[in-house]
C-alpha cells in the first residue's frame, strides 16, 4: 500500500528533514507517527501525497512511484489520499456541504443526487448532517475538523493522512476526533496520524513509529523496516 525505501529529504542549506526512512503500511492498518515539532512528521506525510519529493530514495503509494510519476498524474494520486490538517483548511466562504463536495466536483465522478448522497453519507460518518449549511466560521474547532475529515473520506481514499488533527483542539474534542479517525480506519482505510501526543496511540494500543531529527523508529528496535 505505502512503502518508503531509503527516503532522505534535504532542504537548501543542508537541512535534513528525513534521513534514510524505511517503512510500510498495509491496507486497513493504522500507524501513529509520534515526534516533537520539527521532527519531520509533516514532511513524511507530504511525501505520501507528493507535495514534497524525496531527495533520494523512493516512495510508493498504491501504484504511484515518486521517482517515475508524471506531474500530471499527481492530482490522480491525491484523489486517492485523504488529508486532514491541524488548521482544518476549509474554504471559508463555502458551506460544510460545499467543502465536503469539493473532491467529488473535482473528480466529476458524480453530480446531482449522487453527489448529495455521498456528501451526506460522509457528513453522517462524522455526525454533522445537521450542520451542512453552516459556514466554517459558524462551526466550532471540533466541528470544522470533522468537516475536514468528511471531505478527506468522501472519495473513499485508499489512505487517510492526519497531520496533528487534534493540535488546535482541547483534549476532550481531540479524543472525539481520534475516535472518528479510528472508526474510519475500522472501515478498511489505511490511516497514518502524525502527532506529538504519544498518549493518544498508547491509550488506543495502536502501532507507533517515533520520528526524531528525520529518523523513524519503532518502539523496541532500531530504525523501522
Amino acid at each position, binding site marked *: 500500500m505505502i512503502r518508503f525505501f531509503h527516503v532522505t529529504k534535504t532542504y537548501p542549506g543542508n537541512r535534513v528533514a528525513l534521513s534514510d526512512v524505511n517503512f510500510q503500511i498495509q491496507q486497513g492498518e493504522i500507524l501513529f507517527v509520534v515526534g516533537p515539532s520539527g521532527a519531520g512528521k509533516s514532511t513524511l506525510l507530504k511525501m505520501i*501525497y507528493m*507535495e514534497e519529493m524525496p531527495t533520494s530514495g523512493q516512495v510508493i503509494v498504491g501504484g504511484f512511484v515518486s521517482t517515475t510519476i508524471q*506531474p*500530471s498524474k499527481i*492530482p*490522480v*494520486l*491525491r*484523489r486517492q489520499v485523504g*488529508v486532514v490538517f491541524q488548521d482544518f*483548511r*476549509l*474554504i*471559508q*466562504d463555502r458551506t460544510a456541504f460545499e467543502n465536503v463536495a*469539493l*473532491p467529488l*466536483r*473535482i*473528480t*466529476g*465522478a*458524480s*453530480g*446531482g443526487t449522487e*453527489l448529495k448522497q455521498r456528501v451526506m453519507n460522509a457528513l453522517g460518518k462524522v455526525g454533522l448532517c445537521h450542520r451542512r449549511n453552516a459556514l466554517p466560521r459558524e462551526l466550532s474547532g471540533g466541528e470544522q475538523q470533522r468537516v475536514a475529515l468528511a*471531505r478527506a473520506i468522501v*472519495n473513499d481514499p485508499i489512505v487517510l493522512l492526519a497531520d496533528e488533527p487534534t493540535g488546535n483542539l482541547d483534549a476532550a474534542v481531540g479524543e472525539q476526533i481520534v475516535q472518528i479517525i479510528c472508526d474510519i480506519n475500522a472501515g478498511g482505510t489505511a490511516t497514518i496520524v502524525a502527532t506529538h501526543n504519544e498518549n493518544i496511540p498508547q491509550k488506543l494500543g495502536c502501532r507507533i513509529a517515533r520520528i526524531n531529527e528525520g529518523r523513524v523508529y519503532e518502539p523496541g528496535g532500531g530504525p523501522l523496516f
Partner: protein
Amino acid sequence: MRNFWSRARFFLGETFQGFVRQKSLTAATLVSTAASLTIFGIVLLVTANVQLVSSQLELRKGVVAFIEDGVSEAQLDYMRAQMAALPEIESMTFVSKDEALEQFRKSLGQDEVLDALGTNPLPASFEVKLKAGRNDAEALERVAAFIGNLKGIEEVSYGGPWALRLDRVLRSLTVLNIIIGAIVGLAVAFVVANVVRLAVLARKEGIAIMRVVGATSNFVRTPFLLEGLFHTILSALIALGLLYAVHRFIAQRLPDVAFLSPALVGIFFLVGVGAGLVGTLFTLYEVLREEWA
C-alpha cells in the same frame, strides 16, 4: 453528460462568485474596459461611414461627358471610337436626352416641376467607366481632358479630386483604427489581467486546498479563465450598446449615418475579447505558474 453539466454549473458558480466577491472592482473594470472599447468603436464607426461615402463615390469613379445639343450620329460614332481606344476605359454608356429626363423624373419623384418647364433641358451624355486599378486621380484627369477636347462635348464631370482626398482620409483612418485598436487592446488586456490577478490572489488559500484534494491545473484555471472572458464579453456588449445609442442620437440629425457592419462588429469583438483573453492567459501563466506545468 450529466456530470459535465454538473461541473459546468460548478465552474459558472465559481465564476459568478468571483464577480460578486469583488463587486466594486468588477464594476470599475467593466466601466473602464467598456469606455476604452467605446472609443475604439467610435473610430471604427467614423471609418465605416467614410468608407461608405468613398465606395459610393467609387461607383461614380468614372467620367460623365455631356454632349452638345444637335450633334450628329456620325459624330457620336467618332467619339465612341476615340474613347474606346483609351486603355483606361472599361465601358461607356450613351444616355440620350429622353433617358436623362426619365432618370431625373424618377429621382425627383414628381412630374409637376418637369411639366412646368415644357422642354427637356437635360443634355445627352456618355457615362464612361474606368477599369479597376486604372482609375486613380491622374488617370481620371487624363481621360477627362482627352474626352473634353473631343468636338461635340460640352462639359466633362468627374469626382476625381474628392475621391482622391477621401482615399487619403480613409487610409489615415485605417491606420488610426489600427493604432487605437492596439492601444485599446493593450489597455483592456492590462485591466483584465489585473482583475484576474487579484482574483487569483484572493483565492490562493482555496487554490492550495483544491490542489491537495486532487484538482488538476485546468480545474484550477477554468473559473479564472471564465471570469476574464466574461469581463471582456460583458464590456464589449456594454460598449456596443453605448455605440448604438450614440449612432441613434447622430442618426436623428444625419439619417444616412450607418452603423457598423457585421464584419466590423466582429472585428470590434475580436479586439475586445481577444485582448481580454490574452491578458487573462498571461496572468494565469504568471501567477499560477506551478499549475501551468
